């Protein structure tokens, strides 16, 4: 074992030589122990346990960490992968990468001359400067830099025949890295561009089943990361996702009814999934695909969890959700409704019944109170945001039961739940005014920008920088809420400005209904029977990095682990937990995830990357989604956003710049 791999303290990888973003590193003249340890390379110490990273190649350059690493072989392997990844549409990437890889393979096996190296450099430069998308534009950079700055090293290594070095390559893009589920966004957009909508769906369905739902309500981390924002506006990724999901609606039977998993699993390996929300559905879906027997237990009488009860009909029609969830039954899973954990079932009873693993995706449904005087959950006209949405969706929209509303409604909070409450309240009969009270400024509201704009357009009255300090009750009824004005202070440690109340600024806002929507927590009553589960200090379930709880075989994910978060995060945890459960049941240990590790390495080099769009790019503006006009939509719960046409989808898909980057790590084993 080379000396530098002996772990001394918190060993950090040391760059022996390399080039990254035009900065050349060359420490070859020094002894390895003389090279300073740098914090920024700390992520490169080892790939998995006891497996050091010997070299790393990416879209901005390369690093070699070990003397014994063969640069030419690494570059050849990296370019082989690049050539395989080329989509083939543009000439330099399609043909150039293939010629380069053949030339490199020859150099490695049979040696070559100076002019061979010049020719490779010319081809690499051509691929780099003239390729159409991010993949080709960046793929040859390590090769170009190596030929420019470390040519003599490559010459030494020519003709030494291939020293096959273990290599792990990873292809990603900023949007993919930003997505909790790591959906291959450019790929599904590409399939839309190619007119292959089923394939586009296929890409997303590799991760999770609730595509139409995600295409409607996702918070779109991907669009925030989209490099197109540097040119004009982010690609309408969510809109495109909804487009394919709608276009391919009703295909679930065709796609999955004859599904047979690659490997047949022991029928005794039964899994119970508690909670049919986004996390549970994703976990069950992935487990069913892997061939396990899965039974789901849901407290309510409908599936979907927060997606069903917490998202109003006008953003996510129930019919869409229902159709999407039917995939569980199509794949042979069962969903048992009206089963409450802690009442009808317990983890222990399920284990006794023969379930070998349990996934908890029970959400985080208890509303947080405002903790102000005269607040009482039993007060008429007082309702937590989550409860309000639940009653509205289940009782009013689904079953047509009457729902008592006040004339003037005050919603407290600035998140999406608050927006949903406010916009839903507006649509209810008898409601004259809806006020939204938020303690910080409007810019700081965590809700989606579009949601805030829509609430404005529909007539919600905003009161930013105000905070409730007392509920005004007369004769046991709410008649108003006392608010205090707030002011913004310094930027605190978490990067947010502090807020404090302004003295003597209190005023009373008359109202007869208050909906606090400032957060939720896990209801601990659920675990009265299974009292051995550990909780975090935030009142959520404690899990390890594989999402296993403190009890063996019991896994958890979604809001009950993270606290109230987003649909996509819940679905990601469901998928991850399914992977862990599969490993746990089939191998007895949970495997190392190389892709996840590569994602960490990519995040590690992120601060060292300048990824700006530096060339002039034509402005192509984002598709404008048609909406019902605000006057109409105040009245009804029909879906506000209209679908886009096929032509619009082609056009929008064409805006994606495919910011793919290929990363390769050469490891010891």
């Amino acid at each position, binding site marked *: 074992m080379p000396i530098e791999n002996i772990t001394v303290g918190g060993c950090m990888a040391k760059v022996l030589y390399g080039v990254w973003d035009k900065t050349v590193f060359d420490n070859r003249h020094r002894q390895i122990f003389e090279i300073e340890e740098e914090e920024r390379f700390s992520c490169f110490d080892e790939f998995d346990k006891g497996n050091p990273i010997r070299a790393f190649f990416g879209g901005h350059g390369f690093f070699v960490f070990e003397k014994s690493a063969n640069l030419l072989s690494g570059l050849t392997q990296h370019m082989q992968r690049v050539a395989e990844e080329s989509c083939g549409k543009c*000439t*330099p990437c*399609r043909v150039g990468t293939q010629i380069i890889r053949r030339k490199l393979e020859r150099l490695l096996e049979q040696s070559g001359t100076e002019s061979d190296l010049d020719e490779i450099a010319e081809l690499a430069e051509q691929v780099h400067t003239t390729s159409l998308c991010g993949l080709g534009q960046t793929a040859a950079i390590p090769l170009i830099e190596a030929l420019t700055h470390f040519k003599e090293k490559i010459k030494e290594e020519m003709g030494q025949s291939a020293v096959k070095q273990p290599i792990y390559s990873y292809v990603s893009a900023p949007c993919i890295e930003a997505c909790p589920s790591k959906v291959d966004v450019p*790929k599904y957009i590409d399939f839309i561009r190619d007119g292959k909508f089923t*394939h586009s769906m296929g890409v997303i369905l590799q991760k999770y089943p609730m595509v139409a739902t995600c295409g409607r309500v996702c918070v779109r981390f991907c669009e925030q990361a989209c490099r197109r924002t540097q040119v004009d506006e982010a690609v309408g990724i969510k809109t495109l996702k909804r487009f394919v999901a709608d276009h391919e609606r009703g295909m679930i039977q065709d796609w999955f009814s*004859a*599904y047979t998993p690659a490997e047949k699993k022991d029928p005794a390996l039964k899994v119970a999934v508690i909670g049919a929300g986004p996390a549970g559905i994703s976990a069950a879906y992935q487990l069913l695909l892997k061939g396990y027997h899965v039974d789901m237990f849901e407290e309510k009488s409908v599936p979907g969890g927060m997606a069903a009860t917490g998202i109003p009909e006008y953003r996510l029609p129930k019919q869409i959700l229902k159709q999407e969830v039917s995939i569980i039954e199509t794949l042979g899973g069962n969903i048992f409704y009206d089963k409450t954990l802690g009442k009808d079932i317990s983890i222990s009873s399920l284990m006794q019944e023969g379930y070998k693993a349990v996934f908890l995706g029970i959400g985080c449904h208890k509303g947080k109170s405002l903790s102000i005087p005269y607040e009482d959950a039993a007060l008429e006209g007082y309702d937590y945001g989550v409860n309000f949405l639940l009653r509205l969706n289940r009782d009013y929209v689904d079953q047509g039961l009457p729902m008592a509303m006040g004339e003037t409604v005050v919603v407290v909070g600035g998140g999406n739940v608050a927006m949903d409450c406010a916009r839903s309240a507006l649509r209810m009969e008898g409601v004259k005014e809806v006020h939204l009270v938020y303690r910080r400024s409007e810019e700081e509201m965590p809700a989606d920008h579009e949601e805030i704009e829509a609430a404005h357009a529909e007539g919600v009255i905003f009161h930013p920088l105000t905070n409730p300090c007392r509920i005004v009750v007369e004769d046991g009824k709410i008649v108003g809420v006392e608010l205090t004005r707030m002011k913004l202070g310094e930027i605190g440690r978490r990067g947010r400005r502090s807020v404090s109340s302004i003295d003597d600024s209190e005023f009373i806002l008359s109202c007869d209904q208050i909906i606090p929507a400032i957060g939720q927590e896990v209801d601990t009553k659920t675990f009265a029977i299974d009292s051995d589960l550990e909780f975090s200090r935030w009142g959520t379930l404690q899990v390890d990095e594989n999402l296993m709880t403190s009890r063996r075989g019991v896994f958890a994910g979604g809001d009950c682990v993270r606290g109230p978060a987003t649909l996509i995060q819940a679905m990601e945890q469901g998928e991850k937990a399914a992977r862990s459960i599969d490993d746990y049941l089939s191998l007895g240990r949970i495997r190392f995830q190389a892709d996840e590790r590569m994602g960490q390495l990519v995040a590690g080099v992120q601060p060292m990357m300048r990824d700006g769009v530096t060339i002039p790019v*034509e402005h192509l503006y984002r598709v404008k989604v048609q909406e019902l006009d605000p006057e109409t939509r105040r009245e009804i719960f029909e879906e506000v956003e209209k679908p886009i046409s096929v032509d619009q989808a082609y056009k929008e898909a064409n805006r994606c710049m495919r910011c793919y980057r290929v990363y390769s790590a050469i490891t010891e084993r």
Partner: protein
Amino acid sequence: MYALLPRLLSNYGAIGYSMKGYINNKEVSFESGQTILEVARAHNKFIPTLCELADINHRPGTCRVCLVDVKRESESEHHILPSCMTPMEEGMAVLTRTTEVREKQRLQVEMLLADHNQDCATCIRHGNCELQDVAQFVGLQQTRYSFPEFYQNRSRDFSSPSIVRDMTKCIRCFRCVNICRKLQGVDALVCREDGLAIEISPRDNMPLAESGCISCGQCITVCPVGALAEKDEIEQALDYLYDPEIVTVVQFAPAVRVAVGEEFGFKLGENVEGKMIAAFRELGVDVILDTNFTADLVIMEEGSELLARLKDKDAVLPMFTSCCPGWVNFVEKYYPQMLDNLSTARSPQQCLGSMAKTYLAQKMDIDPARMRVISIMPCTAKKGEAGRDDFNHEGMRDVDMVLTTREFARLLKREGVDLASMEDDSFDNPWMSDYSGAGAIFGNSGGVMEAAVRTVHKVVTGNEIEDIEYTQVRGESSYRKATVDLGEGGKVNIAVIHTLKEARKLIEQIEAGRSDLHFIEVMACPGGCVCGGGQPVTKHSYQGNRGMRTSGLFSIDKKRKVRQSHNNPMIAEIYKSFLGEPLGDKSHHLLHTKYTNRQLKRTSHSMLEIWQEIDDKS
């Protein structure tokens, strides 16, 4: 608020305010939003291009040949960028001919050739190939890279009677996809595989013959190379021409005579009918007929059918024309619920075939079994039409083979017949060669309608229509509507459509009950047969010759003494001595047809198959 800023600026830009920049150190003015390529062209600066096709606003940016050196006003750095996709900016300095630019363009074409089946001498586009041109433009003198495995395994599809796909030659310009998707709205082509294997293929990797392709051949007219071409049947034609036992009967469509001259240096749109007749004689053709004659015949049948439908309360309306086989294929494949709306009249090509082997055989006392009817058509779909089950008589095909205009030109060249040096000659067949001006304009979009209006007006009102040139249905718009006043016969709402995208829109309106039309002419190709998929291709332009070809046909009409189908004396004769009357028994049997539902089943894939395909890709 701030998010709106770029949009506002762009809107400002969209009204196109003037800017200044430099191309090769000369100041140029341009409008915001223009690409470097557009600005360069506007200032007569040539930049070699390959995938781009300005006429259809096609800029996929895939060939990467149109490279230029770009320096922005505020930067010192130079970039090599494709001019087709890069917006020209205020103060930008563009150099089109630096050594580096020329070298990079050259290397790009060298790489394109490494991935291209360079069997040039045998290629259908030899000498008329945009890739050959661009290799010359960039000064490529040798190709260093030859890897047959790069292209050998890509598909070659000979399944269709009309179109051959040879993906070993495809350069991935995506023009065909664009035409099929955006112009025709057929969307039959997608790309499959990736990397070197990437190719344009019918959906679900179906053979072209079984795919959603309707054989219009517009894709061929934009293909820069020989990746898409008509199915060449010249050998078959030669067999017929040189077989002494066979009586060869030739017909040629209206639009051929105003386009084939392009291949022999004639003026655009020049009518070379007389020279074609001379050339046919030179080739040894026995009987020379004109499809224009049966165009007149179709008007008699189709016009009568329309009137019958208008009189019948229960008849299906609107009625669509049925001369265009691409359109008929489209209805059969995509809107089979509209089959009854198609006129049952056969196309002029097929009417000629069936009349030749019955009426003409009788008149000329020739055994129809010895006859071979060869059509010269501006159309690829006609090849498929001639092979339809319904179109044979006593086991013989009505039309034995179809050559496109391009094949006809190649046939002449192969036989050493130079159209340009022919003396004008004229028809000598007394039964099926005369035509009216109405028949002649069948090759223009709107021509069938105009011809029908001339005859229907006379039949219903007893008087010839006053404005013989019914200009309401002329023009370039892809949807033209008019109302014909038939006096006591009422008013008939008519429309003329070309391109199938427009047809799709109209059908959807009809199905939604939002149409008051009675009679609709549809031609699949934009402009009609004059720009059919079998017509001479023009490099780097789409439909560049349409205007001249169109006016070529209209001027034939203008010069004809007889301009209405019903006044064609040979038409009077055929009804008198053979057919009886329009829609009569004989007509029904020989001049009408039926249609079949050929709707494509949505191929059902399991998600597992899709996933395998996706994962194979990565």
